[in-house]
């Protein structure tokens, strides 16, 4: 049994009388001590999918399938049970969360809040724990006395990670934790996250549209397009040898420095991702796919195992490829 299992999960938003299928039948597992990278461009459903783990999707959203944490289906739980999971079993570093720190409260007090809420400890023990948490993310314990404006972006992001760790969760969902940070600070934050997975044996879902970041941090990568997983496999394999044309475009977007193929030759993917309320027929990627053939417009590929990867493309593994 995996720590976290998404089993055929779909999420449909209801907006202005229309159905918006933001996630369409995703099956994914994350084990303890493992990090899964979730990639894909803006709007492909990354946040929507992971928001179901703590039932944080908006009321307008309809969720089907099963989301199991340690074998228990979250959709069957009462709200009280879901609340008990939060912090203690699973916690989230939200997208852009560092801007959500309370500007007039010391970060130590903000960190102590979930601890005092979830465990019966004295304020003094909570403070000791806050110091430990800060050190875990590479900040001196005395920074507990700082206010958010006294910290840099990278330091604030590390405070958010410390907060996610406050109650020793088994699972951490980090939604774009390093976007907007510069490379050196990003490297510091990535090292902290990697260390947690290996040393504390937590499971992690790491969301990013940057495949190169995921390949250097995660054990496995799943690539989403228009609400579905289109490729998944060991991180280095997916980044170095993507099979799906979309994963290939994402991987190619980041040049290997020193590789002359990328010199004066930036590569991108023309076109825009489809709106989930109005998806193309067949393979949803076909209007942008550089290698599409006629039947791509009519036949929807399913996710099939090819070597170490699972890929959803009509051409992968077939004669034409």
């Amino acid at each position, binding site marked *: 049994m995996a720590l976290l299992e998404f089993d055929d999960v779909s999420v449909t938003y209801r907006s202005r009388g229309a159905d918006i299928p933001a996630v369409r039948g995703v099956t994914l597992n994350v084990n303890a001590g493992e990090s899964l990278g979730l990639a894909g461009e803006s709007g492909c459903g990354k946040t929507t999918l992971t928001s179901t783990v703590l039932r944080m999707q908006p009321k307008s959203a309809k969720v089907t399938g099963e989301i199991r944490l340690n074998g228990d289906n979250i959709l069957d739980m009462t709200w009280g049970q879901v609340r008990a999971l939060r912090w203690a079993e699973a916690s989230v570093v939200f997208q852009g969360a560092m801007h959500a720190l309370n500007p007039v409260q010391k970060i130590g007090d903000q960190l102590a809040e979930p601890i005092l809420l979830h465990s019966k400890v004295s304020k003094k023990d909570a403070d000791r724990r806050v110091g430990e948490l800060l050190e875990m993310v590479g900040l001196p314990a005395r920074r507990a006395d700082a206010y958010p404006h006294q910290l840099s972006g990278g330091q604030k992001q590390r405070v958010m990670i410390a907060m996610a760790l406050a109650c020793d969760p088994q699972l951490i969902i980090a939604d774009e934790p390093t976007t907007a940070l510069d*490379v050196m600070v990003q490297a510091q934050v990535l090292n902290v996250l990697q260390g947690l997975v290996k040393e504390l044996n937590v499971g992690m879902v790491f969301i990013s549209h940057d495949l190169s*970041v995921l390949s250097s941090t995660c054990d496995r990568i799943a690539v989403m397009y228009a609400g579905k997983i289109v490729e998944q496999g060991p991180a280095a394999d997916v980044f170095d040898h993507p099979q799906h044309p979309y994963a290939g475009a994402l991987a190619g977007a980041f040049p290997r420095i020193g590789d002359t193929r990328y010199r004066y030759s930036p590569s991108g993917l023309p076109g825009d991702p489809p709106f989930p309320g109005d998806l193309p027929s067949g393979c949803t990627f076909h209007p942008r796919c550089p290698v599409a053939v006629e039947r791509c417009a009519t036949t929807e590929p399913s996710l099939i195992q090819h070597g170490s990867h699972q890929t959803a493309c009509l051409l992968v593994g077939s004669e034409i490829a």
Partner: protein
Amino acid sequence: MTTPTDVDVPSVPEGQAAALEARDIAVTFRGRGGGGQARAVDGVDLRLGRGEIVALVGESGCGKTTLARTLLGLERPAEGTVLVDGEPLNYSSRALKAYRRRVQLVLQDPTGALNPRHTVYEAVAEGLRIHGLTDNENDRVAQALSLAGLRPPERFFLRYPHELSGGQRQRVVIAGALVLNPDVIVADEPVSSLDASVRGEILALLLRLRDELGLSLLVVTHDLGLAWNIADRVAVMYLGRIVEQGPTEELLANPKHPYTRALLSVVPEMGRMEQVVLAGEPPDPTRIPAGCRFHPRCPVVASGEAAALGIEEKCKGQSLPLLSPAGAHSAACYLPASAESVS
């Protein structure tokens, strides 16, 4: 050096005036919360040749944006001179207005740069109106949009920013710069807020503008991959100074300065290189260390290698001269690898 594509890398002949040049520029700010004076830019020589693409790289807070704004005449240097086609920049308001037509700024966040209540047409035409270029407005806007890759342009005229994707918004911002027929574009982190899939498209556009229109481009970024993608030369900035500069291939294949090496080692695609993650936050421009300004974080000093080489004294106490802004690859460092550039 050969490149796989047949791009003619323009070499700036010695003696020909650069499109834009900084000579020994310093920019200071009054320190925050009563602190001392911040020297955000502390002695920079930088040269952007005609038709050249230069990447200015360095970590957050090192002074990249301040330097770029100074080159645009938006910030007045405390010391030093900005040269435009070899002539000192004239800060009279009339001269500045004409200058800003020729040198355009493209900012990081396309969403923040566009007024949500203005259509694409209005956003692009705004520059024309400010500069009193009222003839053929429609044609000029259409041409700028198609140069920026929004084709057919008429289809975008009446759209609002929220009806566009992030990449399309950035193209509108670029069209707004192109509509004035500039010679130089200064782009501050032009792709860092964009999706990976869009990034290459925008970089390809910048490259095409250079190749087709002969534009000079200064791209400010902390992304060395971007430099490898499009830049002819790279200047690495640390705490207000250029610490290494040179042609892109040489500098990235054979970085001399320990700071550049560290920056390169943490690029995620360089996964197989041994990481040198510098501890701590970028240092404070109100307190620039003596000697080599990088010495408190320099791994060569920390490992004892500098002492073994007998340069530690100099690292900690003797300040380094400015690097010459063009020509051969050079680094401001006492290590033997860079010795010829700082002898």
